[in-house]
């Protein structure tokens, strides 16, 4: 299926990536080319085939629900773009 500029705008919005209006159409063409190539998958008969989500056939391991780490506030904040008195500083979220 061909991807149009509106579809790219929606995917960009979902991806939280700013795409300039002028870039939407060329990007749509590029992605349509890739999707058209991907659509050869429709040739494969997959009736009754379970989707494969992982190649590890083991059950996810469980562990005790206890604290194993912590007390490293400064290390956690060390890479933050903005901090203030031991907190992350982020743009206003609630008006």
């Amino acid at each position, binding site marked *: 299926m061909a*991807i149009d500029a509106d*579809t*790219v705008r*929606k*995917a*960009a919005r*979902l*991806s*939280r*990536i*700013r*795409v300039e209006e002028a870039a939407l159409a060329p*990007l749509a063409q*590029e*992605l349509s*080319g*890739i*999707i058209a*190539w*991907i*659509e*050869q*998958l*429709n*040739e*494969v008969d*997959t009736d009754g*085939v*379970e*989707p*494969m*989500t*992982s*190649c*590890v056939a*083991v059950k*996810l*391991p469980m*562990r005790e629900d206890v604290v194993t780490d912590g007390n*490293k506030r400064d*290390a*956690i904040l*060390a*890479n*933050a*773009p*903005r901090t203030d008195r031991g907190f*992350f500083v*982020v*743009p*206003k*979220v609630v008006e």
Partner: protein
Amino acid sequence: MADLTSLTLKAALDGLNSKSFSAEELARAYVSAIETANPHLNAYVLETPDKAIAMARASDARRARGEAGPLEGASLGIKDLFCTDGVQSTAGSNILKGFKPPYESTVTANLWRDGAVMLGKLNMDEFAMGSSNETSAFGPVSNPWKASGSNQALTPGGSSGGSAAAVAADLCLAATASDTGGSIRQPAAFTGTVGIKPTYGRCSRYGIIAFASSLDQAGPIGKTVEDAALMLSSMAGHDPKDSTSLDVETPDFSAFVGRSVKGLRIGVPDEYRLDGMPAEIAALWDQGVEWLKAAGCEIKRVSLPHTKYALPAYYIIAPAEASSNLSRYDGMRYGLRVEGGTLQDTYERTRAEGFGAEVKRRVLIGAYVLSAGYYDAYYLKAQRVRRRIAEDFDTAFAEVDALLTPTAPSAAFALGDRVSDPVAMYLNDVFTVTTNLAGLPGLSLPAGLDARGLPLGLQLIGRALDEGTLFSLAGVMEQAAAFRAKPQKWW
């Protein structure tokens, strides 16, 4: 001591054990080689000479106390995808420039536990998305190899282009790498080095910056089969911090190198003989078959009927997982932030500026194939095809013990050659991506040179957790190929 950098990992460990030289002398030789070469090759995005000397001195001290580990004093390069405590780790992306993780990846921690020394961080395609190292925010790596009589810069392959180039140019004894669709094996093939992607779950993914979690797997690139085996034995092992890490013993893989392969059954898959495959690659493949026959292997034709659907399935699954994994780069807790008018605007500007074109392309594809209305048609379909591909291997491995294929459909190509055509670039991984989807181990070794004097690789694919057989087969083929060519030093 100028020739210390030309040693294999095994020879360097022997030299350190016999006290022919110290870990510090070895590290200094590499630091100076990197200083000279890196402005030309761009293999390292971060050189850590002070750390290397300090680690080497500590290693010499451990050895003096009689506490030498299996890789004691070995100077290694680390792909920039691996988080290293207090040392910038960027995954080749602007969005992580300046990021210094406050923790160490399990794979690198295992290497330091065994005595290894870090020379620096190696260049790579951004977030490991690429097959030519050209998507790196630090610029492409140049392949140390050039075609005979040509001065054109060639790609070292990708995404582990820095790792492969550094090993080929003697800028480290061996390197860590990672492979989501062929990112260890294709660069190894393009640079005349040995690379192995082990079974999914052999190496912990903890602290490895995530691309596509169900496919990502760490592995080594080395100068010889034995070197790759020594590296993997150290890198692998169960880790409770990665829930998909396999709770199995890690064998001494180097013990498999040199074992007889007599009586092993080797499959040659029909579907890997592509239309338009260069005659030299087809001939080299036939040569590989002859080497294994001569070593007493039984050769069988096998069929992997869904091979051609592996890449299209991969280009749904990998971008889908990437779009989810990369959602963490929001400019709030670490990495780049570009302030906007609102929170939403800040997210969108941060990610628009922080990600390169290929990463954006894949995140958009991922968001599209996962979005309402398309999820079943694309994502679930791809996961069903993935099972078909895995079943193909199950069927083949009922009859054979390993498979032999080419590693890549061409030798190294010129930088700039394929950047404008994403699908042409994706086709680099046509022979390697199948094992990522099925979780199987794949090893690439140099098998010969093409008419232009560029290295070509052959790939061995094994059963899950049967890397040992691959190392035995690769050892035999390495002997037969007697590949000794090195790139002409132009840097």
